[in-house]
């Protein structure tokens, strides 16, 4: 019985990982855009992003999650009903969870990327511009390789926190590892056993990604040195 319940819980790991990876992609892309925005010369844009980061980082993830999934559709639907359009929106728990996590962590990612970007000497970019390189090419060939190396420690940290934060989606009724663990715990009356299974899963993901990212860091270090000689 234990093996069956445990495999039911671990089978939900696919969903947890998909959610985490989706949120990672979203938060990285959005975080990079926000980081560039923060470094722009437009004062209003900087202020806007600062406010966004402040608000997002100042509200618990759980509160944001519940607001987006339960309150936002209700508010939109009230508006739609009032306007008499006959439409009605519904957020799927998977997308609501992924987008919310992605947006929350984009604030953290933008801070990580911003300090990474600031550590790339401006002279390199100016030199590239002087050679007439296209901004995209400057980004791909000069900025990104260095940013990857500089931002990796912070990026790793954000990823580890985010994997664990995915457990919050169980409150939206999404059948992730945590949701299944609770179901098994209540069905059997053995909460410790099955929460430990869930704990083991998150730990294994953390362990695997720590090693993976360490290997990546070593690789980036080497290619960067190779590039310099």
């Amino acid at each position, binding site marked *: 019985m234990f093996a069956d319940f445990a495999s*039911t819980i671990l089978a939900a790991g696919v*969903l947890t990982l998909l959610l985490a990876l989706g949120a990672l992609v979203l938060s990285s892309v959005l975080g990079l855009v926000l980081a560039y925005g923060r470094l722009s010369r437009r004062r209003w844009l900087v202020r806007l992003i600062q406010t966004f980061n402040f608000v997002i980082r100042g509200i618990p993830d759980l509160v944001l999650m*519940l607001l987006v999934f*339960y309150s936002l559709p209700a508010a939109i639907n009230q508006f739609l009903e009032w306007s008499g359009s006959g439409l009605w929106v519904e*957020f*799927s728990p998977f997308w609501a969870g992924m987008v919310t996590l992605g947006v929350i962590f984009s604030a953290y990612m933008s801070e990580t990327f911003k300090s990474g970007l600031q550590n790339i000497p401006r002279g390199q970019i100016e030199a590239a511009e002087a050679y007439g390189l296209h901004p995209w090419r400057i980004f791909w060939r000069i900025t990104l390789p260095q940013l990857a190396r500089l931002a990796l420690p912070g990026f790793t940290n954000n990823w580890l926190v985010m994997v664990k934060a995915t457990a919050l989606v169980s409150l*939206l*009724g999404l059948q992730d590892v945590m949701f299944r663990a609770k179901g098994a715990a209540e069905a059997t*009356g053995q909460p410790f056993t099955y929460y430990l299974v869930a704990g083991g899963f998150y730990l294994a993901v953390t362990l695997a990604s720590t090693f993976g990212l360490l290997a990546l860091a070593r690789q980036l270090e080497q290619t960067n040195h190779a590039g310099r000689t």
Partner: protein
Amino acid sequence: MLRLKLALAMSLLAAPALAAPLNIATDATFPPFESIDANGKLVGYDIELMEAVCKAAALECNIANAAWDGMIPGLIDGKYDALISQLTVTDKRRRVIAFSDIYSHPTFRFVAKKGAGLDISPEGLAGKTIAVQTGTPMDAYVTAHYPQSTIKRYDTGSAPYLELTGGRADVHISYQAQVVHSFLKSGAGKDYELVGPELTGADAPEFGEGVAIAIGKRNSELVEKVNEGLAKIREDGTLEALNKKYFEQ
């Protein structure tokens, strides 16, 4: 399964469709009424009852495991068509949701250590600690009637039993069938017993009028259909067989 979810997710905007199977939500964390089996499948009294009702009323139903916190808001918003989760009928709930006919009148019981010699009354339990699952009729009952006791509230159905066996609570109150199934029949509960009177909705309004299927307030057509189904399974003996299967000790 996942692909299906993704596909559903793609259509964020959807118009209400009556032809699709009904979305029925349950919080499968309350055996023997609703829980998951080792393969993650929904099982229990409420699940079997709902399936029988759907069959009898010729409704296409999809019963899904959901999180309790979102169930009633989800019903009001139309995310779910109905809820079955040992929902007690109360006036407060009637204001926001509709109910089918009542299908069960549950019995509530206190449970304590064998030979504890507790006097189950507000005076007898004065100064004692009562463990209870938060937000349940039992919670409302002890909160209203046992003001002199310390009430410890827990998020899950299983936690109060850990408190009881850990010696951090003197007594716990829940659905009798749940106490028997989840605790007394398990190894952990062998030194414990049901104590005090059998309580029902007739003893205190907090226990509600009975248990029913919750349906969206605007969906009176579905209320009628579900009631038809309930009447049918009452007549043909399905309900009686279910009661026997789950509640006879």
